[in-house]
């Protein structure tokens, strides 16, 4: 089936125009999580939403499913605005979302029961879906008796049985181990390719680049804070696709380049920190110092010798985008590395770090933390100025909340506490919830 050619001639299933979503923060300000998204979905397509977790792509999926309303813009399904949970769109969840008290058969029948279908017909269709997805013999099992892969098969069967026009997949493979995920993806692609699935189009939300390239006809790449569509890549490789295929690798590389491209205006560049008081509002993603050290050592070592291709290093370290990108960005923030064009290159300081012993590493880390992370410098300054050398966490939390949502502030503080402890720049007492200068001796 030549999906793309056919798709162009057909009326769109789904039309998303100028959709934004914002949430109200505690202080009444709006926090934008999704900005001005446009998308047209045609029959026969698998479209992937690619971005890091927490970037808002799942929010977009829920807006499409009608589980939530957009703040601005319209979502048209078959030419009519989506209002409330829509028929014709069924969802597969990352956590499976199976009802633990229902058997496999009952779980699969759930959507049909809601349609008020007569029992014999319901039974027939459920068994058919169970058959199709390879669950025969498990009809009377309870979800907790099944492995993760089998559970997600139930998730697929439950969604397919209602014969939806659009299958919405929210990171369906990311809770599974690598091998199981691969098997399930292949099975799904085979059924899709043979036209056996009672669906017209698929939206796949994922943060796994290889998975996206393997499955999708078209990829939308999302930025974070807020989520915008940074770029679109058409994947025109024939199925089945092989990760070893040079064209496949080239596409993966291209996605990495797109994803490491600097989005307009929001990156904390070297300039912004020269002015005291600015840059505190950067949301920091927590990355353990062990991961930072490990990544630097890997890039410094052979065969990379200080400069590595991100896809290559991701594969070698078995890191997913979700782990790799925050780590690379943390290194960039700390001036231990530069990330650009899908590559990571250690700076002189980064190379030096890999050569030092534990104590000197800590000292170097502390110096960079104070110099390049404004929040760390700020915390240290406050502690130095106070006679007691202690300051409650809530003080900084309130400050951060001017710039970000509660969750982001919590995460940023967690990061700064962890880095501050590693560099021994300051200590933190969780019991009293306050920062101090004293480490227990």
């Amino acid at each position: 089936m030549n999906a793309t050619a056919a798709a162009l001639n057909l009326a769109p299933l789904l039309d998303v125009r100028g959709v934004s979503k914002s949430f109200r923060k505690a202080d009444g300000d709006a926090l934008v999580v999704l900005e001005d998204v446009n998308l047209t979905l045609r029959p026969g397509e698998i479209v992937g939403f690619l971005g890091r977790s927490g970037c808002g792509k799942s929010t977009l999926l829920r807006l499409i499913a009608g589980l939530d309303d957009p703040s601005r813009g319209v979502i048209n399904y078959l030419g009519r605005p989506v209002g409330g949970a829509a028929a014709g769109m069924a969802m597969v969840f990352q956590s499976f979302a199976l009802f633990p008290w229902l058997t496999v058969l009952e779980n699969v029948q759930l959507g049909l029961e809601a349609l008020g279908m007569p029992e014999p017909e319901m039974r027939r269709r459920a068994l058919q879906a169970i058959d199709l997805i390879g669950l025969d013999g498990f009809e009377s099992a309870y979800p907790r008796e099944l492995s993760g892969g089998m559970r997600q098969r139930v998730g697929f069967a439950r969604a397919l049985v209602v014969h939806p026009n659009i299958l919405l997949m929210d990171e369906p493979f990311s809770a599974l181990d690598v091998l199981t995920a691969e098997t399930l993806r292949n099975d799904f692609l085979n059924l899709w390719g043979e036209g056996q699935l009672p669906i017209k189009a698929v939206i796949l939300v994922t943060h796994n680049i290889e998975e996206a390239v393997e499955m999708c006809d078209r990829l939308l790449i999302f930025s974070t804070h807020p989520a915008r569509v940074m770029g679109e890549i058409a994947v025109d490789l024939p199925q089945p696709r092989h990760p070893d295929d040079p064209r496949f690798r080239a596409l993966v590389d291209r996605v990495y380049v797109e994803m490491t491209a600097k989005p307009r205006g929001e990156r904390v560049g070297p300039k912004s920190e020269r002015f005291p008081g600015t840059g505190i509002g950067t949301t920091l993603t927590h990355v353990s110092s062990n991961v930072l050290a490990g990544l630097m050592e890997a890039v410094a070592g052979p065969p990379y010798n200080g400069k590595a291709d991100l896809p290559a290093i991701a594969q070698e370290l078995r890191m997913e985008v979700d782990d790799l990108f925050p780590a690379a960005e943390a290194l960039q923030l700390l001036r231990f590395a530069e990330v650009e064009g899908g590559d990571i290159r250690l700076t002189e300081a980064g190379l030096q770090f890999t050569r030092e012993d534990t104590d000197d590493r800590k000292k170097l880390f502390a110096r960079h933390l104070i110099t390049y992370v404004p929040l760390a410098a700020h915390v240290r300054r406050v502690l130095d100025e106070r006679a007691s050398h202690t300051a409650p966490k809530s003080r900084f939390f309130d400050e951060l909340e001017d710039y970000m949502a509660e969750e982001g502030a919590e995460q940023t503080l967690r990061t700064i506490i962890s880095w501050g402890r590693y560099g021994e720049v300051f200590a933190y007492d969780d019991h009293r919830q306050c920062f101090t200068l004293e480490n227990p001796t």
Partner: protein
Amino acid sequence: MRLDRLPISVLRTRYVPGGWDLLAFVLVFAFFVYAAQAARGLAGSLAHLEAVPISLAPSALVGYSARTALRMLIAMSASLVFTFTYATLAAKSRRAEVLLVPLLDFLQSVPILSFSITLLFFLQLTPGRVAGAEMAAIFLIFTSQAWNMAFSFYHSLRSIPDELIEAARNFRLSPWMRFWRLEVPFAMPALIWNMMLSMSGGWFFLTVSEAINVGHTTVTLPGVGSYIALAIEQKDLAAIGWAIGAMFVVILVFDQLLFRPLTASADWFRLDQEVGLTPSHSWALTMMRRSHFLGLLARAFAALLRAGMRPGATAPAALERRASVWDAGWVDYAWYALLALIGLVALSKTAGFVLGEVRPAEIGQVVILGLITLLRVAVLIALASLIWVPIGVWIGLRPRVASIAQPIAQFLAAFPANLLFPIVISAIVLHKLDPDIWLSPLIILGTQWYILFNVIVGASALAPDLRYAAENLGVHGWLWWRRVALPSVFPFFVTGAITASGGSWNASIVAEVVSWGQQKLTAHGLGAYIAEATIQGDFQRSVLGTVVLSLFVVTLNRVFWRPLYARAERKFRIA
């Protein structure tokens, strides 16, 4: 595969009822006979009831147990209906929530005896008939069962995982279907546990519920509770013994036929495999599963439910859309203003009612009585903790012991304080002891077990790796308790202590006034104050005492237990 909807006799040519069928058949019909017998008295007149006094003959206990058990079952069903409606409304409507949840908090703190004022109301409903008195008794049992069940259900509804709710919405389940397919099953494990607690509560206050005594009106309904009350009045030790035996049998039957199957099947409802004490084996459940006869009944029930689900299923998705007018801010303000107004009216009514009779100075005295009871509760909770925490840890680390200890503790929790009156009174009189001190242990008689229960659960949930690590590092003795055992059971202990403390306040009404025949001992305290006022029909003082007690309990919960609980959750739970 689709054939199993046909009658069994058609489906299988050589159908022979199995042993499980026979047992099920006998049990089901015995239940109907039993219920019919127990219900026969309902239609009778009150005069007839008075003409036939309670008999202390052991043989009479068979009938009494039947009637008590039936009352408890009816009250339990009423509690379930209350739970499903009240808690659902509280969880689903933001506006109802602000009223219903604090109201539940207060209702839970009101001692059951204070509800006996309603006797006159129920008697007037059916003049001269026993039915009114029965309703009063069932209502009183209900008040000792319903609140914690409703609270547990509300709490469960609020903690359903987001993705399950999203799945239910995505597959467009109607509200009715969502209730039975998602909400009730999810809430089931916690609800069953609370039903068991409620049953124990019902037994503990049984004498108060069946032998109702308000002012000049006395109603004594045939039942185990009235039997115990009479035995105490007539100082009949043998009868007390028989009553304990009958109670034990009924509790055992409830446990085997109702709670064990429920807990065993509740394992199916759990989201994750928690380590707990739930017995996962029940012969009665096996019988129900294996018996075709009961299977048919169950299938009929399921079909009924499904029939109920259909009409909702065709309802449009528009149901999900909120009526926008109701979302407006001014509706909120109007609603809160209305609530405030109702509150003010209620406050002035109550104050006027109480102050019409009671001098303001007496309110101060009542508060002092409350402080005395507070001291009693605090000291005894502390003592009980010192005793039961180490024992609970010891038991919890030994699964075999734990499985034996759990049903025993459950029986002890149901053990009414009144049954110990003879022992306590003779000891106090014999040794010329101070009732203010020596009546106190009764206050914690039924509630200390909640501390034990929870500590056992906490200790059995202790991760084996932590135990091995401690052993490996040679952590022993006091250090082991301080660093391993106590921190890991602490959150569970706090939960148990909260339940025990709340229950002890309620128990003070039966623990501070104790009688045996003509002998009567009274301790100073709020419980005694309420008990005396209610029995004398002094409604003003009864209401005053109840209000003060409720305020004590709720304040204590807010300023002491809640922060402690939050701290325990934060500090000691392993994420």
